[in-house]
């Protein structure tokens, strides 16, 4: 049984690879290669080890859910993968880019060209309409979708000219997803995307993320403390104290509608 249902040929940076058995490790290209990754924060005189010598690969078109309690290091991991933060030691490779020692300009370029972010609090620009929030990103991208198409993907065509203050939380988050995917990123990183939303709205948002992953084949990582979401993933890893404590594959990806928590 194939795990990844469909990969949009126009987006895929690497050729799709046939998978045989679900228990056989996929021989696909690793988008991210994380090796012996450590991150130490200095909070005054205290050292906080957010990540401890972590190894992790993230594969093309994969839907990864990262679970963990607060303080487990999941946000730190996402921030480093997304080029928002740099590790204390260890290496991070994105395809053929070395992110480990990249400077601010290189990281900015990396985020601009390859990464789509979705955050817990949406982070839309309040002075721009939904469509303009998306256009803001497509304006600086190399090969973007039309902003209207991106909004269509998350089902918000009729809300395109509304300002954030005129949108519900779920709608704002879907705009944020549209904004993240409009540039056709190689990876979509979502940090607690449903954390600020109620149950029903949260499912709508998860559905949108799921659709992006299935329709566009965008490699997707979602961090959450909500274990129910893990059922949507190809692969689930659990972090504890800065290490990977569990790494498993789902036999079947559940749709967002099937989830309950």
């Amino acid at each position, binding site marked *: 049984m194939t795990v990844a249902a469909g990969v949009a040929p126009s987006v895929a940076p690497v050729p799709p690879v046939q998978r045989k058995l679900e228990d056989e490790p996929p021989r696909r290209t690793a988008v991210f290669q994380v090796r012996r990754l450590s991150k130490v924060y200095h909070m005054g005189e205290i050292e906080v080890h957010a990540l401890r010598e972590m190894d992790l690969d993230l594969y093309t078109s994969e839907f990864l859910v990262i679970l963990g309690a607060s303080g487990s290091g999941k946000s730190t991991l996402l921030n480093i993968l997304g080029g928002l933060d740099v590790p204390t030691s260890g290496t991070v490779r994105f395809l053929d880019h070395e992110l480990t020692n990249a400077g601010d300009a290189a990281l*900015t370029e990396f*985020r601009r060209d390859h*990464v789509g972010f979705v955050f817990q609090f949406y*982070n839309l*620009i*309040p*002075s721009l*309409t939904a469509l303009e929030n998306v256009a803001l990103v497509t304006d600086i991208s190399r090969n973007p979708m039309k902003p209207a198409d991106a909004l269509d993907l998350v089902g918000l065509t009729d809300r395109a000219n509304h300002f954030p203050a005129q949108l519900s939380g779920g709608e704002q988050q879907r705009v944020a997803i549209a904004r993240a995917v409009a540039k056709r990123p190689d990876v979509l990183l979502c940090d607690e995307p449903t954390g600020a939303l109620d149950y029903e709205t949260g499912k709508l948002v998860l559905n949108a993320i799921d659709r992006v992953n299935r329709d566009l084949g965008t490699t997707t990582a979602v961090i959450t403390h909500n274990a129910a979401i893990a059922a949507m993933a190809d692969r689930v890893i659990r972090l504890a104290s800065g290490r990977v404590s569990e790494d498993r594959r789902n036999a079947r990806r559940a749709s967002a509608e099937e989830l309950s928590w």
Partner: protein
Amino acid sequence: MKALNRKLLRDLSRSKAQILSISAVVACGVASVIAMRSTLDSMQRSSDEYYASSRFPNVFASLRRAPERVAVRISEIDGVAAVETRVAVDALLHVPGLTESATGHFVSVPDDGEPLQSALYIRRGRFLTPRSDDEVLINEHFADANRLGPGDTLSAVINGRWRELVIVGVALSPEFVHDAIPSSGLGMFGDSKHSAILWMRRNALGPLYDMDGAFNDVTLLLTSGASEQQVIASLDEILKPYGGGHAYPRKDQLSNNIVSGEIEQLRVFGVAMPIIFLAVAAYLLNIVLSRLVATQREEIAALKAFGYSNSSIAAHFLGYPIAAVIIGSIGGIALGIWVGAKYTMLYTQFFRFPNLEHHTSPWLIVIGVVVSGAAAVVGALSGVRAAVSLPPAEGMRPPSPAVFKPLWMERLGLQGLLSPAMRMIMRNLERRPIRTLASVVGVALAAAILVVGTFGFDSAHYMADTQFTQVEHEDLTVSFGQPRPYRAAREVAHIAGVTRVESYRSTPVRIRAGHRSRQIVITGLERGSQLRRIIGRDGQRYALPASGLVLTSALGEILGVKAGDTVTLEILEKGSRVRREVVAGLADEILGLGGYMEIGALNSAIGEGRVVTGAYLTIAPGMEPSVVQRLSDLPGVSGSATRRAMLESFNKQIADSLRLTVEIVVSLACVVALGVIYNGIRIALSERSRELASLRVLGFTRREVASLLFGEQAAINVLGTPLGLVMGLGLAYWIAIGFKSELYRFPVVVMPRTYLFAATVILLAGVVAGAMMRRRIYNLDLVSVLKTRE
């Protein structure tokens, strides 16, 4: 220390750049109150004391000639406490070391003893010996300008005869605190070098003008409670048969008029400037504190939840304006006293009191601090009120998201013109129209202050340009000091290197039109003169008429005459002939009150043949030094001056008198500009750091994010700068009209370079403020900003 106070101190130290920039604006307000008012008080005090101690007269009158016994009748007027009669005449002076002739205003002092009114204060040297014949005292302005002092001599054409006079002392008089003799029209840039006041024993001066046992000038002291108007009416009645009838009160006395005009000017600026600065300070405190309260909603709610009272929360937030006022006051008091002392010192160059010392009253300091404190509290009020009225439960919830609307431009269907970044900027500006307007006005004020503070240079240079490039075309002016036959000019023409010679004849006259009169110099020019041109009001050159008089337009205005009118000339040389002349036209010369005639017409008016007092020359390139050398060897030549040197000295004089004001005004404007712009960006960053961090995460570079942030301020500057330039021009006109008198007339000329300067300073203030913010933008914490709700 209480924990809440500790929080205040920490918050203050965290926003020290903001508090300091506001303190600087407060300091400007306090300093301008103290500087202006203390200078004013010092001037007022000095003049009050001086007028009282020197018995400055209450009423003045001049007349043609009256026998001394008339003084008895004057003393019988009800309300007159004392009468002093004098002889006052104008005469041509020849001053050693001065190329051009100067005019002297001679005032008699009693044969023995000192004047009973307008007592003279001897600055250097000694008083006149009783009944002395050739001794004079000269006023300090003239003494300083020509480096003259006791022991020096000068000569005067008194009633047509040259007399050698010995200077025995340098004196001050309450009638000549400012040395304005309205012959220059330059006011503060007065012509001290060419106009002297001289005091001479009456027994020496009187007979020269047929004033033995007679007088032509009288001053009165009145009893307290006397009616000035009635005394003047009675005095005019008495003096009318003697050519008088134009008595005037102290307030119209020229020097006093200028002194009180200057005091009035200080009073106006002493109110207007602090208002501007304190309004800006209040506005800045308003936005800073409102923002602070917005960011500390949760803290305020927590404090309330702990049971802190509204009054202690209000007091806590009032700590910010109070801190700004305390820091600002300390700087402002010091700056104000320093500037006041500087200003007072500058004034001593123009206003000669026996004692003009700068004094700052402690009350003034108290007033300055209290007024700025009040302004700061008013500015802070809405922020404090927001803190007090915040219900604790609501404070725990995040504020509702900002509501935006499409721009009016977009409603007009022009949205295609704007990029999303532009829209962000424009919508942010449109969302808070009042704050945007206040910021625009703040920037505009700074630009306006810059224009007003520096346009004086333009006006002066415009005047200089009109005079020295349009009117005057000679390279060098030769002066003979006294009338010489025409061949004297021909001799000059023979000097190698002299390419053109035009002779002139100048003479002092008193010109009258109706009851208005002025003493001026009339210059007779050769017909078809190329080197001295008469520029009409339309800026066009026109030919000197064969007969009649051309007056400078300033003089025409003062006398209330126009072309075709008739004026009376009292020739002050050669026995005071009186002539009536037709005004042939007005020349648009800004410098000076004066007149031109055809040289032959002038000589015949004086009753002389073909004589000249000097000549205008042009000189072949490179020959100037040798020509000057040859001229100094010619026996008849009393001096020569190059146009270039005169232009330089004029520019230097302008620069000296304006420099202090310009320096002060420009620094104050910079403080305002920087305060408004820095705080504007700072607040915008605080409000939008989350938005900007989001953009950084989305892949916007630091530069792109910074340009978004600065774009908003840039838009405000772009709106505010032209507005400020227009406001500055308006203010300049207002000042020019408000202070227009014959002594303070200046054209309002604002050259592009002044606008450019003002716009550049605003731009630089923006760049500096941006540089100050750079670190904060570069260090935007992407991770933590995204993790939290605002």
